[in-house]
């Protein structure tokens, strides 16, 4: 009888070990960023950044009035403009590594908006600043079913391994495309 229980315990231990090994993250997953998920209107904090996304818009062309050397801001695709407030929590960071994920595709934030830009904040840490994050994407990206739950990844640097990153979900599938959107320089947010 005792021998039978021993055999059962051995089998259970073997199965449990197999399940643990099978469900353990693989190499890249063990060093992946730690995404802190949120939705539009929600304030999300990562290690270096607090972010609130107020909304998303689409446009064929950007209108930049604060600089007369902005050039031609049309696109063969579509501009995705994310209105967000950011607050740097520790020291200074630039946000040129921000990405938009639609399904399997990743898009890098465009530096089309001339300086001053929210991508290179002018204010110090602790001061909330609001401005547009602009992405240039092909029209086909909006036809992707994943556009309904696209994510803006506010990477605080190019190196995000095992760092926390605010990931805000936005629905791009139901937005109408505006002929133009006006882009303004970032502003300081009052609490």
């Amino acid at each position, binding site marked *: 009888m005792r021998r039978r229980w021993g055999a059962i315990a051995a089998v259970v231990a073997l199965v449990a070990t197999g399940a643990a090994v099978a469900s353990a993250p693989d190499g890249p997953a063990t060093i992946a960023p730690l995404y802190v998920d949120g939705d539009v209107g929600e304030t999300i904090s990562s290690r270096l950044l607090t972010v609130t996304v107020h909304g998303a818009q689409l446009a064929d062309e950007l209108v930049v009035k604060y600089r007369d050397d902005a*050039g*031609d*801001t049309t696109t063969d695709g579509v501009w995705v403009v994310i209105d967000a407030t950011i607050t740097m929590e520790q020291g200074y960071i630039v946000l040129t590594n921000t990405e938009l994920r639609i399904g399997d*595709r990743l898009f890098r934030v465009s*530096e089309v908006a001339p300086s001053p830009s929210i991508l290179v904040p002018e204010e110090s840490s602790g001061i909330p600043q609001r401005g547009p994050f602009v992405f240039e994407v092909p029209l086909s990206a909006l036809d992707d079913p994943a556009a309904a739950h696209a994510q803006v990844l506010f990477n605080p640097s190019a190196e995000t391994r095992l760092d926390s990153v605010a990931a805000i979900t936005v629905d791009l599938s139901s937005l109408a495309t505006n002929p133009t959107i006006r882009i303004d320089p970032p502003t300081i947010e009052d609490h």
Partner: protein
Amino acid sequence: MTIGETDQTGPDAPAPAPRKRRLPGWAWTLIGLAAVVAIVAALGGFREVPIAKLPAIALGETHEGDEYRTTVDAVYLTSQLPNTGYAAEEGFEYLVVEATVENTTDRPIFTLTRQLIRALVSGVVEPYGDAAAPDVSDPRFGGPVGYLQPNLPLTVLYSWDVEIGQIKDGDEAIIGIFERHYDPSNPAFDDYSTTDAVARVITEVGAGR
């Protein structure tokens, strides 16, 4: 001499056996080399190796690469790049290769680390060397092209400073299209390897304008 031994030094002694001649070392070396050559020849090592010709495409024709879809649209000289606000320095002008490139991967690609287009024109603009590194700009707003977004074709200008008169309209221009290719066996470049040109466009300066 002890008892039982015969005297072999006398006049009736047998002549000494001729000493065997050994091959000198250099002969063995030659034989070894000949054997190696014979084995290489037997395995086909000296057969003429067909060298794959670099595919030549026409101006305006699209090259489908591993990561890029590339079309060279025009090659021309100009004194000012569109929207940059800067004219060429006195005594210089720009040689411009205008191309439409599309990143066919699902990740943004930083263009400055990819010398996608190089030009060889009249021996002036060489495909290698720091001095020949081109500027890559977006003609819409004149700024540098940072990242190529996935599946979004973009017209880009590759430009080199050249002295006025060094290159003339009608000069032959060889435009090389380069890109890295997937090579999982090469650990030196993560999961990619660098590559030589993958296609060439032979045209003339002033074409496509």
